[in-house]
């Protein structure tokens, strides 16, 4: 027997092999991870320029979020990609869990040991139970020492290559970095940029926006620090009498809002007004200023009317749905057609809001529509029933165009299957000239069964055959054959009667069981 102490030799060697293999595998994994991470160098180079650019852009409207100077930004932009690549590779290596068996499999493969080390380690871990497992463990001892002494080959990983399609990312990152530095160093130039970014609204729309600003009663927002640092050029332009800036300021002072609204609010208001102006231009362009004020009142009007007439708003939707689904009523039909034309629809709604007389008329129309929906369908709209017969005579090329699932088989379908095997010409199933027997009527009558007496038939003897039956072929069996067959069947019968499963006594002279 192999004692437990005998296994300490191979066990210790295997443990050292595992440690060595794990170190080697981690080194390979680090190389591989660095190679993979290096491919992402250019994308990583975008990080710092993007952050700097975003920080400086935010700094245009608020406190700058990029606190670094130009030199520091450049250094960060150069160093950060490599740091990101290194951290990525480190994370990959640390997450690499090297299994013990993988380490042993490494040496098994490198030294062509045919799984000896893995097998020995497994048998040692669970305790060898059979002679061959003991022998396998002992057999692995010399190979384990050989594995410890073996030089692991250096795995030559290909040098990290930057993919050509990612080279433009480097240029992009340089451009972004340059833009970020420019924004960071020249904030005064950058302050005009948001104004320039907004599309120049037409002067009419600007006037309209100012008019809207008059009506809005927003609380004043405190001035932001960045806006305090307006350059002198812009201030001078605003203070010039008669200039456009002066007019703007005068208008703002009249409304009381001034510079309290941000440029974003301005641009959004201008955009919304531009949309409204577009609508107005499509409808009634060239009208007076009173017409221009009409769109401003439209959104406010329903808001004022909705609380006063909630039930009417509820009734509008069923009416519309009825009009769409029914399609038979006169009023609903007109309503459906009007829904496709929003300006006309708006106009109709405005008309509805003018008086109650119109509502009464509409209720009458609804009642008419309900009555029409419960009336019978028109008979001239009825279609012939679908032919469900599979006979070829019923062939037609018309498909079930309704596709309502109620149709019978189409003409194409009838040409297949059993129907296709039938004659194309229908054959009469009765003889010509023979009259139809007509309907068969079956009537049942209640009647109790009546017993009837019958005479019993006496059995008679058929008697024996008197004449010769002729020649009967006789199988000439030798007497010993007859005896053997009779003995066999007698033995079989005796065995069956005895109920034993033993073999017949006349058999088993050779071979067999």
């Amino acid at each position, binding site marked *: *027997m*192999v004692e437990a102490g005998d296994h300490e030799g191979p066990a210790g060697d295997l443990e050292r092999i595992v440690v060595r293999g794990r170190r080697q595998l981690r080194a390979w994994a680090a190389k591989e991870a660095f190679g993979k991470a290096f491919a992402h160098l250019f994308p990583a180079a975008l990080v710092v320029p993007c952050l700097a650019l975003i920080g400086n852009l935010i700094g245009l409207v608020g406190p700058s979020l990029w606190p670094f100077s130009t030199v520091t930004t450049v250094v960060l932009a150069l160093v950060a990609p490599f740091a990101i690549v290194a951290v990525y590779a480190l994370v990959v290596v640390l997450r690499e869990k090297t*299994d013990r*068996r*993988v380490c*042993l*499999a*490494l040496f098994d*493969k490198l030294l062509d040991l*045919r*799984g*000896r080390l*893995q*097998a020995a380690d*497994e*048998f040692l871990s669970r305790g060898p139970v*059979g*002679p*061959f*497992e*003991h*022998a*396998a*463990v*002992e*057999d692995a001892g010399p190979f384990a020492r050989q594995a410890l002494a073996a030089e692991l080959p250096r795995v030559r990983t290909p040098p990290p290559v930057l993919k050509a399609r990612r080279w433009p990312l480097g240029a992009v990152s340089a451009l972004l970095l340059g833009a970020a530095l420019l924004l960071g160093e020249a904030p005064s130039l950058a302050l005009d940029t948001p104004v320039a970014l907004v599309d120049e609204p037409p002067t009419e729309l600007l006037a309209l926006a100012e008019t809207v600003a008059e009506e809005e009663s927003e609380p004043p927002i405190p001035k932001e620090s960045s806006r305090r640092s307006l350059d002198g050029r812009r201030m001078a332009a605003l203070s010039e009498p008669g200039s456009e800036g002066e007019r703007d300021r005068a208008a703002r002072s009249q409304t009381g809002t001034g510079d309290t609204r941000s440029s974003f609010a301005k641009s959004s208001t201008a955009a919304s007004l531009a949309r409204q102006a577009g609508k107005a231009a499509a409808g009634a362009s060239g009208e007076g200023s009173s017409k221009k004020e009409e769109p401003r009142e439209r959104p406010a009007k329903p808001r004022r009317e909705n609380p006063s007439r909630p039930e009417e708003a509820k009734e509008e939707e069923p009416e519309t749905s009825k009009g769409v689904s029914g399609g038979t009523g006169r009023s609903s039909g007109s309503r459906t057609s009007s829904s496709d034309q929003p300006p006309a629809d708006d106009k109709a709604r405005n008309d509805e809001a003018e008086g109650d007389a119109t509502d009464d008329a509409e209720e009458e129309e609804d009642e008419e529509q309900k009555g029409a929906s419960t009336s019978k369908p028109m008979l001239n709209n009825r279609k012939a029933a679908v032919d469900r017969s599979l006979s070829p005579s019923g062939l037609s090329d018309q498909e079930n165009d309704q596709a309502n699932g109620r149709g019978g088989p189409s003409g194409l379908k009838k040409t297949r299957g059993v129907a296709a095997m039938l004659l194309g010409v229908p054959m009469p199933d009765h003889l010509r000239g023979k009259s139809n027997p007509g309907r068969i009527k079956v009537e049942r009558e209640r009647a109790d069964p009546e017993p009837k007496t019958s005479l019993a038939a006496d059995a008679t003897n058929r008697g024996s055959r008197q004449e010769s039956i002729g020649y009967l072929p006789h199988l000439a069996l030798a007497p*010993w*054959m007859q*005896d*053997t067959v009779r003995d*066999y069947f007698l033995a079989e019968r005796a065995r069956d009667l005895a109920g034993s*499963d033993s*073999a*017949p006594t*006349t*058999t*088993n*002279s*050779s*071979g*067999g*069981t």
Partner: protein
Amino acid sequence: MTTADDARARAADFKAVFARVKAEVGKMVVGQEHVVDGVLTAMMAGGHVLLEGVPGLGKTLLVRTLSEAVSLAFSRIQFTPDMMPADIQGTMVLTETASGGHELTFQQGPLIANLILADEINRATPKTQSALLEAMQEKQVTVGRRTIHLEEPYCVMATQNPVEQEGTYPLPEAQLDRFLFKLIVGYPAESEYHAILDRTTGADDVDIGHVTNGEEIRQLRSTVRAVAEPEAARTFAIRLVLATQPDSELAPASVSECASLGSSPRGVQGLILGGKVQALLDDRFAVSADDIRAVALPVLRHRILLNFRAQANNVSADELVEDVLKSVQPPHAIAA
């Protein structure tokens, strides 16, 4: 003697007997080394062999020579379409006793022996082929109410001709699955033809001696079964078999497209048993993934049923097994 020494002695004995039998068979059979190795491996593993090859390549000669070398009860069955199960299993016949009387006795068929050569097995009808099923799997023959247990070692070595398919009955899957190995017998090389001529056309007769016997082969079979099987080798064998099944996740694309049926669990048994023989021949005491890989082709090629697409594209089962071996890697394997 320690248990490890005992195992070493048994392994050495196995290898010596294997080499002796192989050398003795090599006296008659020229070349075909992989076929001889496969036949001996299957016999030592306790399985049956299906030899496929065109006529004249020495399939029958190989089995007959092997029977002489191992000194086992040998019987040859030449299958024909009119052969009935009773012709191979045995039947009741009327015989005369020594005392002059007569009796019905059971005359055992050629199936009851140790080494069976089922020559041109695909010429027999499925009814007769099915008579082999019980003998090959359960090692017993049932005739009427009589059940005859076959003596170990029991090995069926069948041959079939892949060319002449007219008038043949391809073996059903259940029959094929019972063969441990399917070996393809190919043409000999040019150098081997000289040796064939020397041995068959010369005046000298080759004398085949008995180098082992049934009892020794039984011991060798128990030695094979005692070989240790690590978890890695077992897992690899299971994955290989799973990869032959078209619906399996491990199956490569070619198997999913071209196979309609994969290997049964008998395939795993065959892989492990054949791998154990390979391990013993390689002076090892535990089977490895390389041993499994070495016997994968003869074990799996006849257990994959090809579909119509494979036949239309002339894809063979061997190609599918090669694909399986490429796609399935042993557990904990490291890429080169």
